[in-house]
């Protein structure tokens, strides 16, 4: 990835509602190098009401990583347009891999209670937000309600991909198992050599991290820059991220699981 070096970390904590109900964390996160020039980050949010969504979230980030390795193994794009196109291809590849796994997994389910395949698939419902960090490019794909923050030297933190607003009356979240997933797919690319940090977050962090009045849209507050500067110090233990997300202060913002994948340029 060239100099200066980057640091990658992930943290995922179980939401207080899940703790109260004795349910596991249904989010997943993955951080892994691709080819020495690019790094992969992803977060997935298993639908809280679906019995196998944790498994679905875990598989989704794995499928996305496998797709990223396969697609970038054929060479790196050189322009934003090419990156965007690649992210669409990568998303398709990811969903094919996920579907293959899902088909096998559904066949393994006990015969009793088997029913509509669409319903069975929905048991594994999860959202996916994945990014490829290949400076000066940061490319992403999104299915669902995750959000993406990019921090640039001199420019502060920017909410590049916002979460949906006014959730009470909003339409249903689209998952990787949804029929409308292709329409809901979002891809994007940031081209900026001064990017110092990238944060991928599940929607459980919306209330804790973002500012704004919600209805008109969210903003990344200036204070978010502290995440990137703090973790840019290699001496800071990575566990501090989980400590922050799992703090009582953050628990008070949402009952959901909270997950972040963070990339910071070491300074």
């Amino acid at each position: 990835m060239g100099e200066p070096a980057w640091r990658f970390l992930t943290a995922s904590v179980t939401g207080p509602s899940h703790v109260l109900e004795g349910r596991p964390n249904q989010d997943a996160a993955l951080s892994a190098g691709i080819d020495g020039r690019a790094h992969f980050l992803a977060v997935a949010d298993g639908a809280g009401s679906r019995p196998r969504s944790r498994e679905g979230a875990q598989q989704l980030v794995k499928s996305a990583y496998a797709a990223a390795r396969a697609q970038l193994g054929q060479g790196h794009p050189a322009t934003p347009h090419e990156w965007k196109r690649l992210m669409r291809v990568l998303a398709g590849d990811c969903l094919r891999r996920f579907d293959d796994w899902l088909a096998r997994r559904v066949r393994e389910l006990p015969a009793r209670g088997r029913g509509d395949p669409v319903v069975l698939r929905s048991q594994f419902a999860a959202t996916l937000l994945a990014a490829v960090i290949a400076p000066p490019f940061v490319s992403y794909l999104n299915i669902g309600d995750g959000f993406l923050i990019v921090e640039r030297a001199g420019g502060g933190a920017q909410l590049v991909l916002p979460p949906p607003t006014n959730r009470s009356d909003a339409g249903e979240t689209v998952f990787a198992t949804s029929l409308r997933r292709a329409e809901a797919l979002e891809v994007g690319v940031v081209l900026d050599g001064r990017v110092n940090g990238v944060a991928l977050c599940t929607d459980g962090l919306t209330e804790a991290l973002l500012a704004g009045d919600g209805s008109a849209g969210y903003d990344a507050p200036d204070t978010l820059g502290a995440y990137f500067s703090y973790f840019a110090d290699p001496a800071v233990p990575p566990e501090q991220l989980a400590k922050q997300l799992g703090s009582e202060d953050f628990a008070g913002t949402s009952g959901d699981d909270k997950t972040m994948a963070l990339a910071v340029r070491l300074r």
Partner: protein
Amino acid sequence: MSGPVDALPPAQPAKSRILITLVVDTSSSMSHLGRIDELNAALHGWRRQISAYTHVMRMGEIALVTFGNGHVRVIDPRGKESGAVGQPFVPMTDFDPPRLEAGGVTPMVEGIQQALDILGTRKQQLRSSGIPLANRPLMYLITDGAPTDDQGRLTDRWRDLAPVLRKQEEGRHLLFFALGVREADHEVLRGLAPESAYNLGEMEFSKVLQLVSASTEKVAAGTARNQGASEIYQQVDQHMQMREWLGHHG
């Protein structure tokens, strides 16, 4: 659970709201066997109980409507204003209701209509202020009787209200629970809330309010916003293991 990392900024102030409305029976039947005293004690205890759900406390706003004593009344949930209430919804953290008195007939239908009115007004206020709702508003009817007209005669005007509630549910504007104790008319409860009516028999009000807490928390968790009302009611039912619980308490 630990404190936040000092070097990192604290969580942002609450942006979303969760609106909770309690519609409570204070008719003369509630004076029997000290039921109103039990309800008063339960409401105060509930404040402590729900404070365990930190995100509900942080985002929650509550309103209290009574029907019975004084006909239909919008009560100040903070226990500060005794007359007309300027702002029916107050932060959950301020919930400290006044002592309720029992008396009069059971204008249940008017009570629910009043609750829907103040809810609509509050939603409009929040919308105008750009404050979103974290999830659908929750409304809980708690009663030990059956709806009557002004003369205390049983009325079936609730049948006209049921379609209004269904429309609100289908539009994802409301979740409505009907919780009946003692002599509550279960046909009415089932009519008003076909998928979320509970005949709780002799269950103490403190336990009734535990059901309110548990379902509020379940809905406030966020995951429910992707689901239709039926699915949520089903999950709340399973979550609280209501039927098993009823077996012990009903």
